[in-house]
């Protein structure tokens, strides 16, 4: 894990002092809200429906036990005893009071954390594959590159007033768990003839105008990665639309100018700035890489795991859904579900955070990850320790065996918290999860991704859900649109709108009709929903969603 050097430490402490001074001047009236607002946003402090919200960066979703324990401490001391993990691998505290923010930021700085650039028109927290450094299918650990990008983008003087926010995601594996095709820049680390480089994808994004990113360059050598990324952001910084917020993201710039023109301009800019980097970035990258050396794997028998797997059906169900293949023999990646049926997706109490921190320290080489799917991961657990890990999780209400299943729902905070929201998301997620738990169908249904956003900005990635749900305000009433067939992986696809929306009390029955139709239509138990959808198209699912329209058509 990256450890702050003197520069990082001084930078973060200085920023805490600056922002604390700005808060003091806002409270004593020296700063107006118009003057203060951009300052607080640069430091991750929003004003939401019921309270302030502080968004804390968890760079590329990686943290350790000490950091997680400090988040628990913050939740308990200055909030309401919990935190909300987000689709950008961050954590949000929903109830801080303005005078307490300096103390919270100081507590974060004590464990090398901050809230810088988690908002505003800057380069946001760089996200990465949450299985980085652990996944069996990984070519290269993407975190050193993500950390290099974090350092480069933090307080980058050219990029503090961009046309709009800018998000970068990195993966080092073939299977895309980082949703790189829905980011402003998506980087896929790969090897060509033994040399390391990146495939550069630009112009992906969701929101009002969802777009799948386009390949800008199939292979940029790793030595050129940083100047190349800087060239992309520079080109957009000048070309990007500042006259219209809805057209300001790079996806629109790419759409309006064409990928070929953006490529030409990027190459031109790259040629101009490349030499100015002078290899410093590569020297830095090598220093960063030293922070990410893999743990010393232990080699011991996995008998305890095999015995528990054979004897305990609850453990077996959890192992079957929540474990993923690890690169080291005898190890597994364990995903801790923050999606207990009926609970708020992504929320963890301070006590649960402490349990997860303790497990990481005892059994997980002191590493934890946050996934964009709002779960927590112990990336390196020896299989022989998994029965003990599972028992501890069970005692803390954290052993829900539903990763990748229909109740493992992404949901934004929606109108329960967010000022931008047009409808609630959380209760819809809670009700869907509860309903399918009651039906005892979710393991039979299999792999299924439902993603819910409470407004068109799409923080809940609804366009990428196998079923996406978008909450809207229709004439003063909550209304939910369904999209079908979205996919956030390397086969990225935007879901298509199924038809008219559903009222709040109609949405769960509508989802149930869709799933029942899938169970009838699938070729076998091994064909997941998304495959059935691709095979048959939307028509049979639309018929299930709108039975009245179907009857009318049949009668005609």
């Amino acid at each position, binding site marked *: 894990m990256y450890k702050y050097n003197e520069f990082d430490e001084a930078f973060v402490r200085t920023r805490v002092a600056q922002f604390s001074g700005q808060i003091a001047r806002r409270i004593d009236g020296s700063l107006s809200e118009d003057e203060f607002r951009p300052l607080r946003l640069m430091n991750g402090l929003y004003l939401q429906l*019921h309270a302030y919200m502080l968004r804390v960066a968890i760079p590329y979703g990686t943290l350790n036990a000490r950091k997680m324990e400090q988040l628990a401490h913050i939740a308990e001391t200055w909030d309401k005893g919990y935190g909300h993990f987000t689709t950008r691998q961050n954590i949000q505290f929903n109830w801080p009071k*303005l*005078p307490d923010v300096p103390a919270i930021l100081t507590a974060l700085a004590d464990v090398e954390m901050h809230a810088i650039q988690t908002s505003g028109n800057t380069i946001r927290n760089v996200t990465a594959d949450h299985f980085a450094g652990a996944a069996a299918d990984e070519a290269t650990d993407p975190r050193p590159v993500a950390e290099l990008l974090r350092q480069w983008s933090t307080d980058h003087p050219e990029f503090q007033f961009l046309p709009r926010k800018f998000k970068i995601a990195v993966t080092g594996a073939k299977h895309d768990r980082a949703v790189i095709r829905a980011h402003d820049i998506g980087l896929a680390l790969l090897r060509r003839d033994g040399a390391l480089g990146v495939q550069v994808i630009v112009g992906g994004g969701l929101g009002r105008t969802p777009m799948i990113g386009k390949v800008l360059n199939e292979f940029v050598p790793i030595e050129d990665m940083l100047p190349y990324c800087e060239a992309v952001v520079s080109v957009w910084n000048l070309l990007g639309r500042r006259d219209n917020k809805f057209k300001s993201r790079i996806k629109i710039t790419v759409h309006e100018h064409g990928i070929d023109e953006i490529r030409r301009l990027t190459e031109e800019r790259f040629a101009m700035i490349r030499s100015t980097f002078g290899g410093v970035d590569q020297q830095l990258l090598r220093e960063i890489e030293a922070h990410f050396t893999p743990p010393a794997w232990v080699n011991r028998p996995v008998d305890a795991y095999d015995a528990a797997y054979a004897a305990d059906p609850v453990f077996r169900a959890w192992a079957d859904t929540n474990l993923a293949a690890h690169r080291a023999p005898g190890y597994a990646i364990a995903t801790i579900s923050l999606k207990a049926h009926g609970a708020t997706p992504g929320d963890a109490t301070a006590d649960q955070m402490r349990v997860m921190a303790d497990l990481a320290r005892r059994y997980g080489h002191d590493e934890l990850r946050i996934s964009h799917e709002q779960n927590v991961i112990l990336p390196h657990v020896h299989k022989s320790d998994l029965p003990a890990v599972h028992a501890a999780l069970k005692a803390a209400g954290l052993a829900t065996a539903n990763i990748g299943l229909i109740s493992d729902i992404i949901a934004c905070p929606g109108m329960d918290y967010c000022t931008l929201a047009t409808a609630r998301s959380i209760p819809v997620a809670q009700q869907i999860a509860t309903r399918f738990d009651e039906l005892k169908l979710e393991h039979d249904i299999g792999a299924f991704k439902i993603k819910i956003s409470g407004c068109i900005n799409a923080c809940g990635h609804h366009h990428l859900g196998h079923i996406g749900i978008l909450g809207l305000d229709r004439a003063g009433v909550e209304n939910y649109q369904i999209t079908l067939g979205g996919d956030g992986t390397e086969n990225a696809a935007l879901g298509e709108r199924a038809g008219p929306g559903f009222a709040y009390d109609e949405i769960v029955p509508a989802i149930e009709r869709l799933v029942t139709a899938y169970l009838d239509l699938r070729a076998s138990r091994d064909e997941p929903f998304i495959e059935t959808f691709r095979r048959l198209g939307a028509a049979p699912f639309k018929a299930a969603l709108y039975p009245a329209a179907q009857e009318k058509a049949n009668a005609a």
Partner: protein
Amino acid sequence: MSRVFTPKIITANALLEGDVIYLGHDGQWVRCLRDARLIEDAAQAEAQLAEALADPLVVGAYLADAAPGPDGPRSTHFRETFRAAGPSNYPHGKQVEITADV
């Protein structure tokens, strides 16, 4: 033809706590919707909003539609209903914090 004016309340967030506040009958900010002053005149609404926007201790004041109710104003849109009560996923916010004196 000008639009018919519908009754309004003035609401904002408190600077220090960030929580939802309403302009009350005596010009003081109150924490509970039913204690808000229902304004039935367009000119008065605009004048009071201008004053509210100039108040350094509140953030983002605006006019919201409301209707008279037996215990004071009530919201006419679900967004204001959530603001007046708190989130639906936890017993947090005004739904548990409001006491008789606010």
